[in-house]
């Protein structure tokens, strides 16, 4: 009963309700806003974790309202969505911690609570995408997600962030259009919107319609997740938003879109016998994203922009992983999603706090901060090392799994590209680390920096730094690795998902 399927519903409804109720709360009892904010965030994270726990065994289906399968709303969790729900729970909690835990007493700080409405709506949308079992609801949740992120990006209220928000709005709308077009084509062909039902009637849809739907969905979801060549909005939006928004955008939102792409591709467009399959295209676009992200990251003066470009590259790693279409590849991609979420959240947190201390977003101004905040800077270095892929940190092991999967299928070029990503990413993280830990002109910058305050959310930063070591154990402990592999092989078989859902629909 503790892990009943209703947790899936709560993980959506709770943040959605909180978003509205908190506004009223603030109106009637403004003194207690912070306490309620923290409570809502903790409760949402708990509900999300519980939802993840429901999917740990066999797929869990919640049939809301008891309407017939063609009309009713289905929520489904399986082990694939459980991994992403985990990312959502911890990533959302981390962003909430940064946003609400240390509300500064300045007037700007007091206004920060307004951010909470959109933040909880965003969290609800992410959870919705992860648990929905229905194509149309997927689209609806994507729209909710998109509208809240457009505004959240612009909410930093700088010139750049408003421009980035606007571009994100236009491109995101076009992406949604493509997504809707693809869904409409599938609905016209199959007559149902339910994931499981539709995937069992895919063969009856004409080949041309399937191809058109496939390309529309790849473009739509690829645009949302920042895949090359639809990544144009991502560096702008992720770098100009405020720190906590960047954290959740880069850590969780793109992963949710990646989950949707993975789910839809495997259910509706599994390997075809002749021609090019969707997975092959994802592999190629993954390799391209990898370079399209790592190369421009090289000479970014602004550290958050550099991190945003690196997100594009890491989406490439995930795509290479699923492009291999093997249990190992998917397991590697999931593991890398976990590592990247933790590391990118931590790096954005560190970048935001260091920028606040140095008074500028350029990494050249970080001089000597490493001496003042040794623990936080060491955590920053560990997270960067993990994303570079230095052994024995966690990022190395996920890259290793992806490379293994690529070589298993004989994709030498993809494996070499993933390996080359290591050298490319060291080329842009290392100068930043030099600047942090460097010994040149320490004295001057020391005096300059000594004036301003302390590192924000330092405990969170240290905790995230520790994940690089902790997650490495997930690969090194054979039992944990086997869990990942079994999630990978379960994710790869549409029959498992289909049969579980159909069983629940037709008792």
């Amino acid at each position, binding site marked *: 009963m503790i892990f009943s399927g209703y947790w899936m519903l709560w993980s959506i409804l709770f943040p959605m309700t909180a978003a509205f109720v908190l506004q009223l709360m603030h109106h009637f009892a403004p003194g207690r806003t912070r306490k309620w904010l923290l409570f809502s965030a903790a409760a949402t994270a708990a509900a999300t974790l519980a939802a993840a726990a429901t999917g740990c065994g066999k797929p869990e289906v919640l049939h809301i309202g008891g309407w017939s399968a063609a009309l009713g709303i289905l929520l489904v969790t399986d082990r694939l969505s459980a991994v992403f729900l985990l990312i959502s729970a911890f990533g959302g909690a981390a962003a909430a911690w940064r946003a609400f835990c240390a509300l500064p007493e300045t007037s700007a700080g007091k206004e920060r609570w307004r951010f909470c409405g959109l933040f909880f709506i965003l969290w609800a949308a992410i959870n919705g995408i992860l648990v929905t079992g229905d194509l149309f609801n997927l689209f609806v949740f994507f729209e909710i997600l998109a509208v809240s992120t457009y505004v959240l990006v612009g909410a930093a209220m700088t010139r750049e962030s408003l421009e980035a928000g606007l*571009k994100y709005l*236009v*491109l995101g709308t*076009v*992406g949604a259009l*493509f997504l809707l077009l693809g869904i409409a084509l599938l609905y016209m062909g199959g007559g149902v919107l339910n994931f499981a039902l539709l995937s069992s009637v895919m063969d009856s849809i004409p*080949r*041309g319609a*399937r*191809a*058109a739907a*496939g*390309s*529309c969905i*790849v*473009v739509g979801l690829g*645009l949302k997740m920042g895949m090359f*060549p*639809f990544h*144009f*909005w991502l*560096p702008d939006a992720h770098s100009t938003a405020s720190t906590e928004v960047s954290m959740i955008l880069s850590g969780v939102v793109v992963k949710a879109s990646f989950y949707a792409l993975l789910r839809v591709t495997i259910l509706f467009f599994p390997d075809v016998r002749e*021609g*090019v399959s*969707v997975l092959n*295209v994802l592999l190629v676009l993954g390799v391209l994203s990898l*370079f*399209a992200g790592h*190369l*421009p990251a*090289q*000479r970014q003066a602004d550290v958050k922009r550099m991190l945003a470009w690196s997100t594009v590259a890491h989406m490439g790693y995930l795509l290479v992983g699923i492009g291999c279409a093997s249990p190992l590849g998917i397991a590697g991609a999931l593991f890398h999603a976990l590592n990247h979420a933790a590391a990118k959240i931590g790096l954005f947190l560190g970048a935001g706090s260091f920028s606040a201390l140095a008074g500028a977003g350029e990494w050249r101004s970080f001089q000597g901060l490493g001496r003042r905040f040794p623990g936080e800077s060491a955590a920053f270095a560990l997270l960067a090392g993990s994303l*570079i892929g*230095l*052994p*024995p940190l966690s990022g*190395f092991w996920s890259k*290793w799994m992806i*490379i*293994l999967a*690529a*070589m*298993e299928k004989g994709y*030498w070029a993809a*494996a*070499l590209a*993933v*390996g*080359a990503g*290591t*050298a*490319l990413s*060291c*080329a842009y993280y*290392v*100068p930043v680390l*030099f600047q942090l830990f*460097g010994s040149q002109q320490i004295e001057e910058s020391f005096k300059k920096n000594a004036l301003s305050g302390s590192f924000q959310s330092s405990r969170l930063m240290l905790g995230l730094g520790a994940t690089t070591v902790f997650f490495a154990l997930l690969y090194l402990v054979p039992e944990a690795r086997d869990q990942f592999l079994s999630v990978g092989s379960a994710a790869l078989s549409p029959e498992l998902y289909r049969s579980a859902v159909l069983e629940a629909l037709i008792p």
Partner: protein
Amino acid sequence: MVQRYFIFTADRRVLALLAGILVLAAAVYGQGYFKKTGERRFFSGFLFLFLLTVLGAVFSALWLGFLIFIELSTVALFILIAMKERNVAFRYLAVQLAGAAFLLAGIAGAGIKGPVLFGPVQPPFFPLLLAGLGVKSALLGLHFWLPEAHGKSPAPVSALLSGIAVKTGVFGLLLLTGGAYVPSLSAAGAAMALWGAFQALLQRDVKRLLAYSTISQLGYIVAALGAGGVLSVPAVLYHAVTHGLSKGMLFFCAGILEKAYGTKDFSRLGGAAERLPGTCILFFIAAASMIGLPGTAGFASKALLKASLIDFPLVSACLLVANIGTAMVFCKMSAFAFGGVQKSRYLHSPECFRFMNAGTAVLAPLLLFSGFFPGILPAFLGSTGHSFYTVPKCGESLLAAVCGVFLFLFLKKRLRASATRVRDIDVMSERFPNMIGNGARIVQRLQGGFLRGYLLTAALTALILMHLFS
């Protein structure tokens, strides 16, 4: 459990011993080289970490373990170099990680079915591993990073780079070929020996000269490695140890010169023999071992190398020429740095060099001991019954040395004035970051800042995808 991941055979123990001795010497040397207490502590700490990673690499039973430890040792060296020279350290790390990409792919390919033993792999993955290890061990064409990294690092770190770091790569190659005959490696080795000696002669910088000499000596090792056969393993390891010890000493001496005169340029050095007599003696011992004069370890290891190459007269001839070149190189160094008249102001009192000389002197007895008892190390590796001090062998070695000295005297004026640089691909090392930056420009051109471009790209891609899927 330990046996699953590590094995401790004699050949591995020899390399571990080399690493331990060199790290010990570098630790002593560093106490004099680094002025600030904080720097010294930092150096000693990372030196110890470096030693641990090297031990991990040489004792690994699996390719993956080898890779992990070798990358960790790269990171440790990177941090050690970055203490003084950030850009050099940065480029070193980038190049080594790029090499590791090949290694990773190769190991992954060979290890699909499970952990793969540190040793020969299936043919399709051989080239990938060869390329990866080639970067580590500076095979010809992949050596572009070496002159800069070895030439500009702090002297004790250069000694570790030349003495140990490249040897771990060579050890990987040794286990990869597994004693088989690989003609391309033999040829590459002979070419490296000649090219390294030739380039070393033209260098104006003491440490760059030593760096190119490392390439030349690696050529000897690789040539023997490619020849295969029973003798190849002991010969390769013996020369690796000898070269590690003597090149370590030479880099230490170069560091002392640099500290004493504030320059590494031959045109501004000179007369060090009078001011630094102890260093001068140590230099001559190391140089003699490098040239391979009888009575030093270099003679013994080269004799074993030549014995292993007995069936390859062409390669042996190349190595003999390279040996003459080596003799010329060290004549150049001794004549221009230690001989002649003093040109630059002497910066320090001799007491500063106590630790540095001590660190250098730790290694000298080993070279001489090994020269007087040449059979001990091969016997430890299980290869006995070699006669080292025979008349033809001594004669050949002395002949090469004498030829080198005369040729040097003949060309002395030219070599002193040599402003000519023969192009080598070491310029790649400096261009490497720029190449990455230029690659970025292509991608950034797409990022024009206008929505119309973005939308057009998305729409076009959708059309292409639709065509592909149907």
